[in-house]
Every structure is written in structure tokens, then in C-alpha cells.
């Protein structure tokens, strides 16, 4: 197994799948500004996915491009977090999912800019600037909705309770991470989880939301074991290339 390739695919797939989920809001946003905001975010994520998957293809050395990786792999070969493939639900659900993910990505990229791998460091530096924007957007909405009306509060609290089981996977680490840390390719991720909890708790407190005490963990994405939702995403995402192989425009 090529640990670097595996790691890049994990980061790239997280970006691609959450980008696709956000793109599903195009034309369905609760207000025009949010419709535009979510598609803007989506574009950033698909751009980040392109960077990671392109580099993954180069590292693998089998001539696969970023498009080959995005459009021609099956669900079991996808390495994204279960969190990012969860359905959009209502606007509150999408915002909570985004917030939990953005908080993680900001802290992750703040570490990866120190990677000894120049390309990872460059993608992280580029993405970090965008991620700060994303996190501000999702945090402000979590606070507005949580500390909003009774109904908005209840809805985001329910979303938080539903999605919490997928958050332990954000800090999943296996032999891939161990090898890259040992080889000095990526910095140690020690303290990432506690830093994430601190930053998330701060916003949730301001939003008057209760941190779920459910510690049930739901993991598997990093090993290609997904929820039933990913297959449907790929069916839509990959339709064109599957139906018309090699299609370009």
C-alpha cells in the first residue's frame, strides 16, 4: 500500500463528496444569498478535491488523472468520512454538518501547512484561506439557528444529535497516518481532537445547544466501508462518464 496515495485520496474524497452535497442545494437554498453561498463553498471544495486527487494520481504513478479518480472508482474505493456523505436534510442539518467539518478542516490545514511534502503544504495553505471563510459562515449560522426560535433551535439540536456519532471518525488514524508521521511527511496530529472539541464547544455554547452525550461511534469511511448514501451520490456524480466513457466538452 502506498500510504501517501491513500492519505491524499482521503483528503480529496472528503472535499469532493461534501462539495457534491453542497452543490445539491443549487436552486433549492432557503434564501437566494444562501443558495449562492452554498454553491460558492461547493466550488471551493471541488477545487480542493481537484488539487488533492491530481497529486494522488501523480504519486500513484499509474497515469490516473483527478478525473479518473473522481469518476471511475467504485464506492469501496472511496475514502471519505461518513459525515460528509450524510444527506443534506433541512438547511439546519446541512449547516451543522458543515460546521463540524469546517472546524476540523481548519485545524487540520493549520497543521498540514507545515508538512514536509511541498505539494501538501501548498494545497493546505491555499485551502486554509478558504476554510476560514467557510467556518465563519457555518459558525454564524449555527449560532443564529441555535439561539433563534424554538423551532430553529430544536431542528439544529436534532441535527447535532444525529450527526454527532460521525464525529469520532474525524480523528481516525491508522497505519497510513502513522507511517506518514513517522516518515516526517505530515506533522503529528496529537491534540487535534481536543482542539476541535474546544472550538466546537465554544460555538455550541453561544448557540445555546447541548453537546450530545452520545458516545456511540460510527466509523468505516477511511477503509471504504460507507453508509448507503454514498452509492447514490456516485450514481449521480459518475453518470456521464459511466454512460459515455471518455466524454469531454
Amino acid at each position: 500500500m502506498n500510504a501517501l496515495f491513500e492519505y491524499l485520496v482521503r483528503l480529496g474524497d472528503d472535499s469532493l463528496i461534501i462539495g457534491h452535497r453542497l452543490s445539491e442545494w443549487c436552486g433549492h437554498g432557503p434564501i437566494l444569498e444562501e443558495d449562492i453561498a452554498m454553491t460558492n463553498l461547493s466550488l471551493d471544495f471541488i477545487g480542493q478535491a481537484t488539487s488533492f486527487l491530481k497529486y494522488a494520481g501523480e504519486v500513484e504513478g499509474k497515469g490516473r488523472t483527478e478525473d479518473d479518480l473522481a469518476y471511475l472508482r467504485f464506492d469501496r474505493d472511496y475514502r471519505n468520512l461518513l459525515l460528509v456523505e450524510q444527506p443534506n436534510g433541512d438547511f439546519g442539518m446541512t449547516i451543522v454538518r458543515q460546521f463540524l467539518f469546517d472546524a476540523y478542516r481548519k485545524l487540520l490545514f493549520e497543521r498540514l501547512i507545515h508538512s514536509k511534502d511541498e505539494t501538501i503544504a501548498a494545497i493546505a495553505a491555499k485551502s486554509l484561506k478558504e476554510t476560514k471563510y467557510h467556518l465563519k459562515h457555518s459558525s454564524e449560522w449555527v449560532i443564529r439557528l441555535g439561539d433563534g426560535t424554538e423551532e430553529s433551535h430544536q431542528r439544529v439540536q436534532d441535527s447535532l444529535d444525529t450527526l454527532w456519532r460521525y464525529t469520532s471518525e474525524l480523528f481516525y488514524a491508522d497505519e497510513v497516518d502513522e507511517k506518514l508521521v513517522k516518515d516526517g511527511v505530515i506533522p503529528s496530529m496529537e491534540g487535534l481532537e481536543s482542539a476541535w472539541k474546544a472550538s466546537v464547544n465554544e460555538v455550541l455554547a453561544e448557540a445555546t445547544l447541548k453537546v450530545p452525550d452520545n458516545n456511540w461511534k460510527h466509523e468505516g469511511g477511511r477503509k471504504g466501508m460507507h453508509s448507503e448514501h454514498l452509492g447514490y451520490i456516485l450514481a449521480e456524480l459518475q453518470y456521464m462518464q459511466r454512460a459515455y466513457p471518455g466524454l469531454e466538452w
Partner: protein
Amino acid sequence: MVTEKEIWQYLEEVFDPEVPVLTVIDLGVVQKVSLESDVCKVTITPTYSGCPAMKRIEDDIIEKLTEKGVPKTEVELVLSPAWTTDWITEAGRKKLKEYGIAPPEDEPDKTVLFAKPVVVPCPNCGSRDTRMVSQFGSTACKAHYQCNDCLEPFDYFKCLR
């Protein structure tokens, strides 16, 4: 034989497809120009990761230099150092304003939640009494504002650092 200086001049005729008053030089996306025998290599950097204009800019650079008689041009996309709106030239800022897009202002730390949006003077009437309608606008690089005096809605080129 073409010189590097001439290449830089030719690039001032290549425009950003999204903001067609700005050249790629005004925008600050051209990092390097080098010439080796007959091959011209232009290094550019994207504004945002997912900016759909980058491929078009790449093609336009090749087309323009070919038109100017450069035998072979290669465009390389690099991510580092990451682009910032600080690289938009003074001339570029002036052109943006004349075109009706407010140029980037010095924005405070973006991580502060519910911070008061930066004051962006209206490019139409110059009034400082404007309001942010949406942090996200028609493209990834812009926010949407409206002037409270002349009521004109306008785009603001967001500060990215």
C-alpha cells in the same frame, strides 16, 4: 527573437474572463516568465482553488503569445505561494472601481464571528454609507453590497489573505 520583457508586455493584453477589465498582470496571477530556446514558460497561480476561469486563462495566454509569434508556450499552474488580493496592482484597483466593482479593502481578521462588515465605498457615487447584502456573490472572489445613498447594488472584490 522575443525577450522576457516583451512576453510580460504581451500578457498585459490577456484579460480575466470573469472581470474583463483586469489583465492577468493586474490580477497578480502571473508568477514567472522564462524563456528557454524557443519555449516560453509562464507560471500562474489560481485565485481560488475552484476558480473555473483558470483553464480559460491558460488557453488565452497560449493563444495570445502564439498570435504574437512565440513558437511554443507552456503554462504551469502552481499553488504556492498562495494568491492574495494584495497582489492586485494599483492600476488593477483603479480599473475595478471604474468598472463598478469595489476593490478589496483592508479587512480585519476574518475568524471573528459576527464582526461588523468592512466599510466599502460605493464605486458608483463614492458614498461610504453602504451595506453588505451577502458575504458571497456572483463569483467566489466577490461579495454583494448595496449603496444606501444611490441605492445601486454592487460587487465587492473580497480581501483574501
